[in-house]
Structures are given as C-alpha cells and as structure tokens.
C-alpha cells in the first residue's frame, strides 16, 4: 500500500503524500526529539523534512526505500536545526521521581539527568548514530547505510558518544555525597 502511495505522491498527488506524512509523522518526531532533545526544534525539523520530501520525491528512485530516505532527510534537517544557533539546553525537563525504580541505578533522577546533560554535549552527528543504534535498534551496518556514512565513521561516532555518556555518569558517581563525607570524616 505504501509503495502505491509513494508512487502516487511522486506523480504529484498531494492526498497520497498527506497519507504518507500522517503515517510517518509520529516516527519522525520521535527520532527528531531524541536527537535534538528539544520539542520545538524537533517539530521544526519534521516540518522541514516533510516539505522537502514532497519537493524531492520525484528524485527518489526506489519507492521501497521511502522510509529510509525520509529518515535521512530528517537527520539532515536535525543537523540544520542543531546548528541554527538556538540554545540546545533551553528545554531542560524536570524528571518525575514517580517514574524512578529504586532497583535500577540508571533510572535514578540524578543519573538520567547526567545522561541528558552528557547527551546534550554531543555533536549532532554522534547523537544521530547513538539514536539510530540504541533507539531504532539498527545494527551499525544498517546505521551506516541509512546515514550514508562509512561503517568506520559510525563506529567512531558511537564510540565517542558512548564514552562521553559513560564519563558523564561516572563523574556524577564520583561526586561525594554528604553521607559519604560524613563516613570518611
């Protein structure tokens, strides 16, 4: 069904494109938000992606590749949004303690906050690789194909991203708490 819609949209059918956009919109927003960590920027990136997709659709050779092609447009839109000069850290979320599981070290408020802060320090190219691998669940070879970069580049970006996030969490763990200072005193 989707291939037929893509073909119709490619021929200029706006209704067919609207159907494709409605079907893809949620997925695109989810990815864009996870790369940009800002809902406003993510919405702008999705809007740009959809308009650009419509304009460039006649150049898409293989209708079966529509989803992957759309994701690549989205990532490029995210890069543009990230570099447009707006502050990335304007929309820091307050994490609800209701969601915290005491048995899970990583879901503590402090550690989730450290992940957030660490992630915001990553350049957008590393964020995209991290999100495609850990959120979309793509293999590194698949990530390389989707983003159009060599496998070695994907590995490198993921390596740096992971190290940065690990370092952010470990730095937080090294900060002495009041109780530990009291024990050592």
């Amino acid at each position, binding site marked *: 069904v989707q291939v037929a819609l893509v073909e119709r949209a490619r021929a200029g059918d706006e209704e067919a494109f609207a159907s494709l956009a409605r079907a893809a919109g949620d997925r695109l927003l989810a990815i864009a938000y996870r790369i940009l960590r800002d809902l406003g920027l993510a919405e702008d990136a999705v809007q740009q992606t959809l308009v650009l997709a419509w*304009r460039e659709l006649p150049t898409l050779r293989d209708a079966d590749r529509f989803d992957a092609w759309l994701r690549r447009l989205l990532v490029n839109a995210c890069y543009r949004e990230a570099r447009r000069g707006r502050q990335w850290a304007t929309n820091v979320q307050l994490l609800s303690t209701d969601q915290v599981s005491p048995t899970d070290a990583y879901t503590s408020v402090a550690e989730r906050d450290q992940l957030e802060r660490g992630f915001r320090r990553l350049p957008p190219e590393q964020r995209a690789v991290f999100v495609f691998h850990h959120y979309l669940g793509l293999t590194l070879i698949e990530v390389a194909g989707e983003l159009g970069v060599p496998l070695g580049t994907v590995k490198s970006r993921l390596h740096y991203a992971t190290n940065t996030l690990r370092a952010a969490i*470990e730095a937080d763990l090294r900060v002495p708490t009041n109780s530990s200072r009291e024990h050592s005193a």
Partner: protein
Amino acid sequence: MNTNTDFDRHASDWLADGPTELADRVLDAALREVHLTRQRRRWSASWRNAQMSLRLILAAGVTVAAIAVIAALGVLGGGPANPSPTPASPTSPPSQSTASLPASQGVALDPASWPTYTSAQYGFTIGHPKGWAERPATRAWSFATDNDAGAPHSDGADHFTSPDMTVRMSAWSVPLESSADLGSWPALETWIGAWCTQTGHAACSEIHQRAVPMCNEARDCHPALLIAFDDDVIAFATGGSITGVLVVAVWRGDSAPQTAAYGGSRALLEAALSTVGVVPATIPGEIGDAAATFIATGK
C-alpha cells in the same frame, strides 16, 4: 554501568522516554507548505548533470584554444621580452539598480544578479534570490477570500520559497476603488491600517511607528511604505506603473534567525523591492525632507 550490556540497556531505556506523537498543528502546517511547494521535476537532476558536463566540455575547449593562441603568438611574434602592463579595463560606475546591498552575514544581497519573475496574474516583475522556488498565483487576491493575516498561504499571491524552505516571500496586488487617492504617505498609511484590520493581522496599532517611507520610481517618488511587524515585514507600493497596491511580504520578523543570512527580513525585502523600482526615501532634498516630516509628524 559495569558492562556494555548494562549501558546499552539503560541507554535504550532512557531514550524510550519522550514524546512519540506529532502534534496535528505541525502536520497541518507542513501540508499547507506542501500545497504551496512545487515538486522538483524528474528531469531536473539529469539536466543539471548534463549542464555540468557541457560546462566542463566548454571550459576545456576554451582552455585548449587559449593555450593554442598563446603558443601561436609565441611562435610567430616571439613575444615581448618585457610586456607592458595590461591597461586596466574601463569600469562603469555601479548604477543604483546594480549595486549590491549589504548583508550582515551569509548570503550577499545582490539583487541585480537575481533571477526575475513576471507575474502572470498581476503583470509585475520582481526578483528573488537565486535558487528560490517560485509558485505562481492561480487567482486574484481579494479581501473576501484572503482574510488570513494577509496572504502567507494564499493562492492569490505569487510565492517564493528559500531552498531550505524556511523563508517565504510573497507578492500580490490589492485592487483599489477608482475613487481611492493614495498619493501621499499619510493616505497610504491610513489605507494600510484598514488593510491590516480587515485581514486580521496581529499588529495594526503601531503602524506609523513601524513605517519606513519609500519611493516607487525614485524620480517621481510615488508613495510606498515598509512596515516591520513582529512576525513579518511587509511593503506596500502604489502609483506609477503599479496597478492597485503592490504588496510584497517576507513572512518572518526582521530578527528571525531564518533570515539572518540575508541581513534580516527587512534587508531581504528591500533588496526585492529594489528590483521593482521601490527604494528608500532617503534622497536628499525635497523628498528626504518630506520623508522626515512624515516620520516625525505622520503628515
């Protein structure tokens, strides 16, 4: 974080949090934009490549010919041992219409080199930056059908969209009643106030404070005004060869980051206006004095 597996699992858990639904307003806005956007033609990419190949072939041919001429001159004449300096080619002073307008950063505003567009609906010819997409008006603009804060998405306006889709400029004509007399800046300002209210524009209360007097056709200085609203910058010009009121709008506020590369929305709009013969009323003498009086007193 003792193992890679732990880290991967927790990274995935952390990423799972967050919005997963696109707001309807975003989708609607995108589809409105789609409606105004032409699709790239299938042949355009191959045509670009063909043009590139042609250019390369021509460049190579010119280079070969130049080398042949130089070699022939060297063989036949021996060439001067100390060639005299090449005289500087005469340069003509830049005229007002070809002067580049300053841009604070990014894209240089050189409206003289812009492609021009002639409106089939209204007849005016206007320039826009290179690479912008054109979408022609398909009907006439009217107050009855275009009461959505002017015409950002109206089929009654010619639209020009930047390559990255973040900036749109529109131009259209508003018909005037035969009895209307807009032969002065105050009269045009009053008309703009009525237009603003009638179209439901957001900021109609400070038009005079925002108005910049301009001249349509510098020699005769038919009145034109540029209004920098908060969310868009719009110019209105009348008289001379213009039928009705020509409206040209950049649908971004002057300080919007999307137009920063053009020196701001106002600079972009002024550059476009210069291609239709509308220039700032900063001409020394009577016109400049009248503009200063208008700014100070509104008369």
